[in-house]
């Protein structure tokens, strides 16, 4: 069961950073990430 799992503090801090964004900003960030990954893939 997951109830007793103690999450890694670093992961919690990362999640808290993302929670500082609005859902709309998170959606835009996801698109940006996908775009950068596509660009990087073409350069390899």
């Amino acid at each position: 069961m997951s109830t007793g799992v103690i999450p890694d503090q670093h992961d919690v801090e990362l999640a808290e950073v993302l929670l500082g964004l609005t859902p709309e900003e998170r959606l835009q960030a996801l698109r940006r990430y996908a775009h950068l990954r596509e660009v990087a893939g073409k350069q390899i």
Partner: protein
Amino acid sequence: MTELDPERLLHALVDHEVEFCVIGAVAAWLQGNPSVTLDLDVMPRRELDNAERLAAALNALAARPRGGERAVELEGADFLGWKAQSFDTDAGPLDVVPLAAAIGGFEDVATIELALGEFSVRVITIDEVIASKEELGRPKDTAALPALYATREALRRRKP
């Protein structure tokens, strides 16, 4: 595979009045999970009218079965087996998952509504994403769990 444009995908579904919720990694990402993904999973309500709206939305996105070259003209009946189907579209990869392990279908899952600018969508809760990943138990699901547990903890800390 076309680059993911999640906003365009979701906009198309909303514009065509598809009843659906976002599941999987994008649902978790939109709630703060710091683990990124490059495809969108949605769970439609299993009902003929909705299947027809879903088909229209996918046709507007020039959807083709994953790995296929050409767009196919979808109809509502194409979804009535309610099996999971994977598509490539002009706005990136989209998986249609009418039923998911552990959490069931659209009517069964706990969701929250998120405002995404001009529109809003329903996404399954972090608890539902965790339940699904725990039940599936594949290596990639197990690997996703630590970040999901952390996100659940971060969400709990933010609640008054």
